[in-house]
């Protein structure tokens, strides 16, 4: 289980500052990566913090499903005693979904790329977005 930031009184999806951070990071994310179709930050328990593209209903659904996926990934990794799940990739015919935790926070990034992107590039930009989010939230807490 990841730790919450300090004694954060408001959870991320209800905190306007965190939501603004998430939007900022996602905007930068789509600027550097044209093949990004969709991205969302969600709380570990599946509430949408912020998203780019997608409609409201879809965003909520993606957030719930990504949260389940993340937890299942962690459960498998734990059961095999291989440490925490670093990222999860779903490769489909016309694109793929990458998701990973914002380091040290109860928050997850889920991003959908079209098949034009290489997995390596997609992974590295997703990592960057997650780590930028971490930095912003950390600075706020400090």
């Amino acid at each position: 289980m990841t730790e919450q930031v300090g004694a954060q009184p408001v959870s991320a999806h209800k905190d306007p500052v965190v939501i603004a951070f998430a939007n900022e990071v996602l905007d930068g994310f789509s600027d550097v990566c044209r093949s990004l179709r969709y991205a969302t930050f969600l709380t570990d328990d599946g509430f949408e913090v912020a998203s780019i593209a997608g409609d409201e209903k879809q965003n909520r659904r993606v957030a719930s499903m990504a949260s389940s996926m993340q937890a299942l990934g962690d459960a498998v990794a734990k059961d095999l005693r291989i440490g925490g799940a670093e990222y999860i990739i779903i490769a489909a015919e016309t694109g793929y979904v990458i998701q990973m935790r914002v380091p040290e926070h109860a928050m997850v990034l889920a991003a959908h790329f079209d098949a034009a992107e290489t997995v390596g590039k997609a992974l590295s930009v997703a990592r960057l977005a997650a780590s930028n989010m971490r930095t912003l939230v950390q600075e706020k807490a400090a």
Partner: protein
Amino acid sequence: MAEHVILFAGPMGAGKTTAIESLSEIETIRTEATNTDRETADKDTTTVALDYGEITVGDEDKVRLYGVPGQRRFNFMWTILKERAVGLVLLVNNDAADPIEELDAFLEEFGELHEKGGIVVCVTRSDVAATPYLDKYAERIREVMPGRMIPVFTADARNGDQMRTALMSLIANIEMTAMIADSQERAA
């Protein structure tokens, strides 16, 4: 007899994860996440995918116990796990805002499991909230699923013995349903 898959469903904080933990003979698989919805249930974590445990019944029958997330936004997991199940332990916490309404909602979602094997209802946390009494649950069950045999128990999800009693009554029901189906098939 085939291996049974039993589903544990019910509202957030009813005790599904706790019940499977109390019953399981293996180390359970959990998918708990930090709970940010403290208004609905004031606890640290909530299930976001599933719980899994196993218990042996009789000499060798293995029963697989699956818990679902209680929050409706995870209802895609309900659909996935419902497919495999032959029986339902429906847990309702008596201290919910409107437990009878919860009973109703979950019977609507999972009521079909009665036809697949059976349902048992466990009312938890009645030490926290004394009412509604069991007869209110029984009454509502009669209204929404008339003519079905659905036992109602009070049980503490933390108590393995109490949960086992409820589970055994469900399994007896499932086996009966299977036997009846079997004999009908043979008669046809």
